[in-house]
């Protein structure tokens, strides 16, 4: 079978050398002087790997600042996000209102800070739902395999058979369609809707990684010593799977924050007047001519937040050499 696959290493090195120690072969391969035909990329520089780059620190700083602003919004010296100041309606930045006002004259800075609250709640909330359900299912199916796997995994795949945004849109639309839905309940519905969507994705990643780690010697050893399955699963396997879950989860937070904006375009995101980054932009789309600053400022904040989340997710997966599994 292997000779049908185009990409394989020179794993037959053993037979080509004259019985050198395999480790020598590995060294020779690594520095590019082995029988390998092209020079393989050098091993990742250990020193380089350990240090976080400046970009990672910028990303962390940005996220920490955004999160702090969102958490501290109620105590910050900013106007209420729903309070209107007619004189700044559709006006750009001014001394009292650093980012200007929106179409109704609400302070944009305040709306963006409060909007972060809703957007982060949706992002982290949805991923938490996905991690709790999908992560657990992935861990169990990957660890026990057999019958549980045969039942649960196809079901999870079925969830992937509907385009993710469409799935979220239909769940949220239906669940939030009663007239008297409160703003908090609406956020809850959005979290559940996006959470359900993230279940199969996080489930697959977790399962793929659990499968790989469950085959390691230390797991077999733990089994041989009579440790209980659940104990092994949580004590030995889970900690190793966490980096992969975390890396995908960070990406997931960004995706969920963006998806909330998509839902807002359809009018079923976080409910106005409660601001979210998504609905600020969606609401202001009619004001593009008169007040482009609403869309532009909010988009920049949203972009840098998602970029930071993606970047940190990437850093984690590189550091821990996360296998992506079959997506």
């Amino acid at each position: 079978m292997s000779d049908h696959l185009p990409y394989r290493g020179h794993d037959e090195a053993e037979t080509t050398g004259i019985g050198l120690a395999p480790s020598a072969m590995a060294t020779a391969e690594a520095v590019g002087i082995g029988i390998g035909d092209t020079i393989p990329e050098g091993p990742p520089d250990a020193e380089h790997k350990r240090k976080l780059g400046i970009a990672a620190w910028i990303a962390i700083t940005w996220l920490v600042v955004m999160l702090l602003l969102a958490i501290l919004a109620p105590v910050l010296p900013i106007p209420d996000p729903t309070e209107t100041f007619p004189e700044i309606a559709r006006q750009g930045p001014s001394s009292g209102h650093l980012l200007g006002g929106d179409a109704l004259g609400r302070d944009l800075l305040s709306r963006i800070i409060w909007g972060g609250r809703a957007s982060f709640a949706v992002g982290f909330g949805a991923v938490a739902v996905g991690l709790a359900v999908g992560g657990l299912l992935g861990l169990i199916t990957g660890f026990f395999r057999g019958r549980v796997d045969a039942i649960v995994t196809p079901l999870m795949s079925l969830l992937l058979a509907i385009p993710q945004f469409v799935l979220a849109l239909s769940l949220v639309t239906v669940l939030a369609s009663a007239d008297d839905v409160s703003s908090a309940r609406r956020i809850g519905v959005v979290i559940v809707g996006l959470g359900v969507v993230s279940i199969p994705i996080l489930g697959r990643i977790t399962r793929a990684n659990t499968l790989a780690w469950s085959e390691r010697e230390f797991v077999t050893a733990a089994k041989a010593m009579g440790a209980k399955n659940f104990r092994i699963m949580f004590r030995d396997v889970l900690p190793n799977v966490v980096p992969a879950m975390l890396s995908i989860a960070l990406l997931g937070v960004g995706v969920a924050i963006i998806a909330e904006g998509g839902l807002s375009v359809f009018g079923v995101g976080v409910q106005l007047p409660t601001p979210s980054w998504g609905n600020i932009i969606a609401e202001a789309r009619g004001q593009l001519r008169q007040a482009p600053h609403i869309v532009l400022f909010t988009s920049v904040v949203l972009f840098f937040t998602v970029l930071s989340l993606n970047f940190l997710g990437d850093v984690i997966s590189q550091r821990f050499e996360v296998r992506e599994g079959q997506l």
Partner: protein
Amino acid sequence: MSLADTAASPVPVPGTGPILEVTDLSTSFASPRGRVGAVNGVSLSLERGRTLGIVGESGSGKSVLSRSIMGLLPASTAERTGSIVFEGKELSDWGDKEYRELWGTEMAMIFQDPMTALNPVMKIGKQITESLRFHLDMDRSTAKDTAVELLRSVRIPEPEKRFSSYPHEMSGGMRQRVVIAVALACGPKLLFADEPTTALDVTVQAQVLDLLEEQQRERFMAMILVTHDLGVVAGRAQEIVVMYAGRIVEKAPTRTLFADMKMPYTEALLSAIPKLADPPHTRLAAIGGRPPDLVNPPEGCPFAPRCPYVRERCLTELPALTPVDGDDTHLFACHYPVDSPETIEIKDRLTAQGLLISSPPPGSASDGAQDGR
């Protein structure tokens, strides 16, 4: 390119003299740990119609050497110094652009693993006609006829049918024949065969080597046959170069080498020749230890840490490549060659302790020079 320094070597007239003259060639690679000196100060020459064997274990620099000469190393990491004169042209400062004029038509290479050397998603016919059409400006049908002829000449059964096969539909031996056909397509004058049979079954190895030899003779090509197996070059090369840690450690006409080898390393390689009776992929008698670190090469003889006859001087002083008394064609780099009194003394002692089976007689193969770890 500069022709100025060719004055030092005999003026090459096309058609006479050596087709390839390599002087003091060194190649190193950038690596995260520092520069790796893969080839160090190698000189050799080759005449038309003759075969040079380059022998050494993995990591000895033999593959890098042939790729250096052929200009196939990645420009971004590899650095090459020294002189390479091919048919009177100095190639040492050539890049891909200049080399492209030689590749395929003047020089060609056969790779080790036919499983990976052919494009998996291109029909094999196309892989041959491609260069025919590009280099020789053949039209489609002439190229096809030529390719089928080539396939026939490398003894591929039903060449017309095979013309439209994909590589995965053929066995390893057949694929290596295709690789040979690809290399021969535009009639190169110099052929590099880089471990051409290593990845093949023992039974097929001889067939492929015989085929190569036959093609080389018919086309009067010069050939550089790179292998880890002294047995492969024994009957096929006129001259053999033994490499270790990027250096030539012994160089001699084939007959001389087998009759009178000087390097303990060559001796060890000889004992590693597999016997026909061995099943394929038998682990061969090992040379204990590993090749030296080429980023920080040790002082002294690089083989010293693994040499059964090592003495103090070997650890501190690098032996130079020097000719044998009275024979300029035989060079070696060893302070205490195999037939020196010092070495014979150790050899006798080891034999007495049963740690060493006495040096194998030339041409035959014997098991384990020493207990491989």
